[in-house]
């Protein structure tokens, strides 16, 4: 009788201990998720790339909708003219440093990433004037036209930029 009492007591303790462990396990906070970093920019409508301005990263793996894209291990993801813009897919990249540590980019659709041209703009042309080699003015444009001349030969472009710079360059058409 006394022995049964002890056995019951021991079993009760075990059940309570198991319960407490399982409850503890359930309420334990999840391990901290590594914070994503804004290291991806977009270009045109078919290129995403990693900013490696500090030469931090040595290898990359791109993901689409959380699935690894086989073979896409370059600094940029290029879809060969097929627009990523508006395709609704979620992209991110895992970049690895030389010491093996990894950085996960913030994920997003193509249009969620910042465009690089706003941060690194080229000089905008205000006026482009084309002259023949002997100094005759052929025409004036707001941009460099595709075929400004009919006759092949050497010409001179004088290009005025919006920031006030002026470029004079010989060119052979």
């Amino acid at each position: 009788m006394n022995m049964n009492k002890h056995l019951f007591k021991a079993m009760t303790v075990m059940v309570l201990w198991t319960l407490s462990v399982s409850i503890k396990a359930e309420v334990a906070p999840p391990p901290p998720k590594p914070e994503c970093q804004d290291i991806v920019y977009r270009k045109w409508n078919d290129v995403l790339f990693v900013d490696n301005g500090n030469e931090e990263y040595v290898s990359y793996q791109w993901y689409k909708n959380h699935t690894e894209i086989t073979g896409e291990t370059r600094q940029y993801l290029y879809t060969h003219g097929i627009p990523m813009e508006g395709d609704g897919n979620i992209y991110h990249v895992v970049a690895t440093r030389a010491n093996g540590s990894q950085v996960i980019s913030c994920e997003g659709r193509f249009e969620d990433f910042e465009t690089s041209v706003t941060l690194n703009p080229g000089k905008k042309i205000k006026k482009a004037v084309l002259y023949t080699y002997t100094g005759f003015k052929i025409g004036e444009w707001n941009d460099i036209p595709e075929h400004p001349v009919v006759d092949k030969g050497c010409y001179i472009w004088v290009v005025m930029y919006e920031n006030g710079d002026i470029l004079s360059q010989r060119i052979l058409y």
Partner: protein
Amino acid sequence: MVLSLLVNTAVYGISSFIEISAGGGWSSLGYSLTNETQQGLTMRQNGSYGLNAHIGYGLQFNKYIGLGIGVDLARYGADARLKGTAEWMGVTDTEGERYDHIVSVHTWSDWQSVYMIEIPLSVYLRFPVSENVRVYGQIGAKVCLPIMSSASYQGTISHSGVYEPWMLTISDMPNHGFYTANMQDSYALRTHLTVAGFVKIGVEAPVDKLNNVWLYGAICGSVHFMPAVTPDTGNNIIGWRNDTYDQTMYQAHSFMSDYSPILSTNLIKREAKPFALGAEIGIRFRIPHFKRYGCNCERE
């Protein structure tokens, strides 16, 4: 010297000969290249094979001295090789972003050849070394008229872009102007009449003494004193824009020239004054003596 010539002429009399020869060797259009403006490029002008066919007439005043005139057909060639990278810094891509455009040049070859009709006038100096063998030297000048020329280029190039703020190098994006392509085409050369000097040193020996047929061989060299080839325009910046691609491609490379033939670029350091070194072999047919001896016969 003059007295000796006169004495020899009097003793041996004037003879003449016709000669036909063919030769070959190494030739160059004579220009040289510098990478002062595109330091990423290595370049050299290798020259090319040279050919010469000659038919001539000679007057032998005496045992030692003669004069020659003739007509030659000669070929001069050059092969310029480029390798390395050419850079256009701070240009703007089709999206309006600043970057540096790099063209990597693999085995680029730009070669030219010129065929000329040449009229040589020369002096021969002959020295008998044995009964049958004579060594001779020949020095002269020739007027050279280009009659035909050709030029072409061929090579593989890769366009890539370096976006420095991101340490990003882009390649293999054909729709944005970064691609690898093989380019080849031919172009015209502007050629000019020139004057050249030449030297030959050779040996001659009879192959048919009875009919006065002599075989001869010589090593020879020639240098032109005036440029044989000049470009339509000069001092251009070399470019690799290829407008056979579509409008986007053209726009992507708007900062760059079409490929400028090497002779019209600022990579040229020395003008194209051809020279050649080679050897020739030929046959001389000696025309029988035509010295007129005085007639001692008595008139009736």
